[in-house]
């Protein structure tokens, strides 16, 4: 199986009384809470952590896009990915992803992803999320009733821009371009970089992923227990559509904290986990459900989006029912897997096999976890857990993994020497 290291890049210094004094971590979070000089260190720590994960052997490092968000400091994940492309050599770069409807014209995504693919020698995984309500409809002002239609059209345009050899005109419902001809073109051109779709639990998304042969990723913050119903739904739908159970059709996000013992893991990871589930998911319910964002088919199926659940956590009316903001409930609920290497191995094997997921995206940094603790968690996982779970799904072929240039053909990137600039 593939073990991927995911960073959300949370602002790590939200105050203790954040939830009391501020209505939301997202959309209208106050600028006075953001100290750019502290963010300088956060960004550099986070990028060190991503590079470290590549160094210790994770299959991929993952970044994603958020706007006006106190737990996600990457409005442009492409900026981070391009830096990682220069500072890593063999690790896949998973940009999870670019919310297609937010780019005007959407060919911007085709271009930037092609740049990252070229710089990295063909290591890009191209993620195309619709994007959360907070990011797309509120922070970016997109019309919730038109968002999915715009997204689908932008997808068609980006894909055509990657694969069409000649300059073409695109006359869409929302995009009109006379001359589409992107330079550069991606290295992965048979036919294009792997496309992965992070989505909620809608049947339409599952069917679309099956039809297009894309990887479906369920990026929930609520762990494998809560994710089981969704992944079962996904696999049932695949069976109905006559698709095989290749676990590499799917990706899943899981928080993990590993230490020498379970008690030590609780000592280390309680604070960052409670910071994340308490402060980082403190989203004002009024930003959870712009009308039209959830399709009527999904409403009929009674499926609630993940951020609606998060927003409900912030809503006093439902907080009593969903109060997993303390470590005991967080662990009991399966949001975060904690334990000794043996215990974590057992749980990861259980998660992967019960959900049938070949691409496991791991959050080993969360909340206000320090760089030292993050590196400890990352190293221990790589040394003591990874070798004992890698064998899973060995019989299946991962057809959705990047196909980079051969190592010998790729550019050697010299390390930066400050002294040269100073001379």
């Amino acid at each position, binding site marked *: 199986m593939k073990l991927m290291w995911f960073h959300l890049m949370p602002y790590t210094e939200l105050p203790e009384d954040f939830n009391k004094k501020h209505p939301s971590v997202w959309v209208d979070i106050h600028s006075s809470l953001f100290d750019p000089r502290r963010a300088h260190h956060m960004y550099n720590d986070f990028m060190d952590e991503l590079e470290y994960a590549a160094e210790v052997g994770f299959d991929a490092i993952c970044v994603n896009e958020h706007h006006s968000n106190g737990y996600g400091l990457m409005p442009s994940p492409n900026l981070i990915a391009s830096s990682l492309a220069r500072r890593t050599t063999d690790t896949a770069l998973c940009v999870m992803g670019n919310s297609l409807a937010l780019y005007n014209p959407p060919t911007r995504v085709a271009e930037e992803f092609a740049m990252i693919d070229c710089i990295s020698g063909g290591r890009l995984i191209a993620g195309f999320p619709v994007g959360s309500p907070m990011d797309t*409809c*509120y922070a970016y*002002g997109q*019309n*919730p*009733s*038109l968002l999915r*239609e715009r997204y689908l059209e932008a997808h068609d345009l980006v894909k055509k821009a990657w694969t069409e050899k000649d300059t073409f005109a695109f006359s869409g*419902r*929302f995009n009109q371009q006379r001359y589409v001809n992107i330079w550069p073109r991606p290295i992965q051109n048979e036919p294009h970089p792997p496309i992965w779709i992070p989505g909620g639990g809608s049947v339409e998304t599952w069917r679309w992923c099956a039809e297009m042969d894309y990887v479906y990723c369920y990026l929930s913050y609520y762990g494998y227990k809560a994710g089981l119903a969704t992944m079962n739904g996904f696999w049932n739908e695949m069976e109905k559509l006559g698709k095989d159970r290749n676990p590499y059709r799917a990706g899943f996000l899981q928080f993990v904290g590993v230490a020498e013992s379970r008690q030590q893991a609780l000592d280390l990871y309680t604070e960052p986990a409670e910071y994340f589930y308490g402060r980082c998911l403190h989203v*004002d*319910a*009024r*930003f959870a459900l*712009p*009308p*039209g964002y959830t399709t*009527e088919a999904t*409403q*009929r199926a009674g499926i609630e989006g993940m951020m609606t659940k998060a927003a409900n956590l912030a*809503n006093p*009316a439902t907080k009593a029912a969903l109060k997993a903001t303390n470590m005991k409930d967080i662990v009991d609920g399966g949001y975060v897997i904690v334990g000794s290497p043996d215990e974590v191995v057992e749980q990861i094997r259980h998660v992967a096999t019960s959900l049938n997921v070949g691409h496991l995206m791991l959050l080993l940094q969360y909340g206000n976890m320090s760089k030292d603790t993050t590196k400890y968690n990352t190293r221990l996982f790589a040394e003591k857990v990874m070798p004992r779970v890698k064998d899973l799904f060995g019989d299946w072929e991962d057809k959705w993994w990047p196909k980079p240039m051969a190592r010998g053909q790729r550019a050697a990137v010299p390390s930066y020497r400050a002294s040269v600039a100073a001379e």
Partner: protein
Amino acid sequence: MSELKTTTVEVNGFPCRVWTKGSGPTLGFLAGLGGLPRWLPFLDELARTRTVIVPSLPGYPGGATGHSVLDTHLDWVLAVRQLLDKAGLAGADLIGASVGGAFAAEMAAIFPGQVRRLALLAPFGLFDEREPATDPWAQRRDAVAGLMCADPAKWEALVAPPDGANSVEWPIEMVRAAEAAARAFWPLGNTKLEKRLALIAAPTLLLWGDKDRVLPASYAAKFAAGIKGARIETVPGAGHLAYLDRPEAVAGAVLAHFQPG
């Protein structure tokens, strides 16, 4: 007063419900946020002396999913124009409230022959950064009723499922009404209507609830400044959907403006 009659017209291939009641000269009504999931006392007040024709805008209750093919403001304007024609409202007096008010104003501006006299009740269409309108699509569920009406119970009564309503489809229809409004007016309610106000030739009455928590009262003055000869009247004790809070007062003011018939 004749009985309530329900018919259907097609716009862009989608059915739109048309209610007709009353006798006397015709007038039309385009409802505000939430649309018309049920008949209203306000419409009965009008039907005492007038033939009231109430077409449902695409996507609003009674308007099926016609909003789903409307991508631009021009699409919306042309859909409303077709709706009025097919409902038999060409050249009639027209009342538009809230989101429906923005379309009523567009009709009078772009198709001057279409609207005889105009009554606008806290219409959408403008936005002032110095005095921002409230975002109706970023509200906690329990805050919506108090935002729409001075008396929240009036809004609750509008959207409450009637006996025998489908428990799945009814709430979806209510969300669809909000979506249709959002589709046309997201994110600010600003359709740049200001540029076209001077084209309105129909005698215009602007009504505003003095407890409107969605659109500031100063917006009434902005409309009045743009529309030649427009007159402003305030409805005491009424919120944004004043026709729910004060049906008799609003109907009285409108009918007086439309006199002599």
